[in-house]
């Protein structure tokens, strides 16, 4: 759906994006992670033909960008950094106006598509109030509705859950997962790790403009070959497991083992009361921190 090859963008002396080869496949829910200022927005803008690359190539939906960007944009819905709307018009008027502005927005279906999009993002009940009076969360939802009006095949969303409350974040996540299961590919950028962790199937990590990691989240989070145990009798557990315990912290043990069922049986047989037992997986945070260098302390800090 989206591939870039050695994509580089320089603004003066600053290299905002360096040699990025992105690979977003059909059906992905792709999360592009990176701290503020790591080049996410510049990358997104290049995909949409707003910013021109210094070198490298981009292909979106099989067409070269920016050369044939006019062909692919009608099939893309985008939220680019903050949503924007004409503040003196109502949300509905804004969506109609934006739809009327570009090609392929059939007038006949406009009202239906606008209503559907508003319903999808939970704004079906909005009245004629101007956007000026909207809360940040409502604006964010309206921005997403604007991206959905054309019923796109590909969503490119830059920080789509900014400014939403926890319920709003979950609504949007459910919506994106639902759209994805209907065949829409979702590409989103975020600096919020829990968000990406809960939503995405593949991730890429940008660090100072370089793509330092790109993989399926599930394979990144494969079991590490360790099992985490919590027990009331850690002494006996350590004795029973004999050398397999790598680390002990009070009642919590890290044990080198692959099969939790087998380990559990062994402990129970030895009379160790097991409170909890789980495969150790690396958290997204650990994965990201491992591949990013200095400056990654900005992760998770809301903009």
């Amino acid at each position: 759906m989206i591939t870039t090859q050695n994509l580089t963008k320089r603004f003066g002396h600053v290299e905002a994006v360096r040699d990025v080869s992105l690979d977003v496949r059909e059906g992905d829910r792709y999360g592009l992670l990176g701290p503020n200022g790591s080049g996410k927005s510049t990358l997104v803008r290049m995909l949409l033909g707003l910013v021109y690359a210094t070198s490298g190539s981009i292909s979106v939906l099989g067409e070269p960008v920016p050369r044939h960007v006019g062909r692919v944009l009608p099939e893309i819905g985008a939220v680019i950094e903050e949503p924007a709307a004409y503040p003196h018009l109502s949300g509905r008027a804004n969506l109609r106006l934006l739809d009327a502005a570009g090609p392929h927005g059939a007038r006949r279906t406009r009202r239906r598509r606008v209503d559907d999009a508003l319903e999808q993002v939970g704004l079906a009940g909005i009245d004629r109030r101007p956007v000026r009076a909207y809360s940040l969360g409502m604006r964010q939802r309206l921005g997403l509705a604007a991206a959905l009006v054309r019923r796109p095949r590909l969503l490119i969303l830059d920080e789509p859950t900014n400014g939403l409350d926890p319920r709003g974040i979950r609504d949007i996540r459910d919506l994106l997962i639902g759209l994805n299961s209907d065949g829409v590919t979702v590409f989103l950028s975020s600096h919020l790790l829990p968000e990406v962790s809960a939503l995405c199937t593949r991730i890429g990590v940008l660090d100072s403009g370089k793509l330092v990691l790109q993989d399926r989240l599930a394979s990144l989070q494969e079991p590490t070959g360790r099992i985490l145990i919590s027990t009331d009798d850690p002494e006996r557990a350590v004795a029973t497991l004999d050398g397999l315990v790598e680390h002990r912290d009070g009642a919590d043990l890290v044990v080198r083992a692959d099969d939790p069922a087998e380990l559990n049986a062994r402990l129970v047989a030895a009379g160790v009361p097991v409170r909890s037992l789980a495969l150790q997986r690396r958290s997204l945070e650990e994965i990201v921190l491992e591949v990013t260098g200095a400056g990654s302390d900005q992760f998770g800090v809301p903009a």
Partner: protein
Amino acid sequence: MIAVELFKLVRRLRTWISIGLICALPLIVAIFIAVTHLAPPPGQGSAFLSAVLDEGQLYPAAALALVLPVFLPVAVAVVAGDSIAGEASAGTLRYLLARPVGRTKLLVAKLVAVITFAVLAVVAVTVTSYATGVLILGPSRAAAVGTTPGGLAPGSIAPGAGGAPTAGLQPGAAITSLSGTPLTTLQLIERVLGAMSFITVSMLGVAAIALFLSTLTDSAIGAALGSLAALVVSEILVTLNAASAVQPYLPTRYWLAWIDFFRDPILWRDIQRGFAIQAVYVVVFLAAAWANFATRDVTA
């Protein structure tokens, strides 16, 4: 896309407030003149103003002369300067372009909206000042004017005046041209329409400059002020003898040529040059705006 831009223009409060303010200036002037019966003497002050106490139907011409030097260009510069820069700073530009709206298309639609605004403003001034002239100025008061110091004696004219021209009433009450010949109502309408289109076209140079600056910056006010600064420079150079070499190419050089529509026969020379110079400014600055906008990174 043009329809979308026109919708945005008419749905915007600013459009109507600025047109209202432009129309208010001639109204205020008319009220002062009507109350005091003191019009500027012929050959002084704003064009046509000396005659309006005698002939209220001439007030549209006087009103256009009042708004032409400052009000109209300021309003046009604000609208044109806002066109791209305003969308950029509001963040809507990136969504329009991602819709997608072609950049060239957007620029053309913006220009059409600015021209529409100028036409609306000129028409509004003409219509409101005609009503003002007929209602509170005009022949019914001419008798009182005859004895008023500074008023225009009926029938006085300033044929082919070099400075601010005047028009007047001949005995018998037909409106006369600046050359002294009577004008029929049809002729007067034709000439007012001619002057209106010339004044609208005169605004296109400013509009094109402001539109170009609007593609350079994300600050709408910067673009508007930049184009106004260019106008001020031009208006100063036009009156400066030392700058006579460049005067024929200044955007405001032929701004007053619309007055020639009220001579008999119409003096076409400066009118044609006025149209031509505006066309040159539009072509040059629109090309520059296009060249810049089409290749520029949209980071706002």
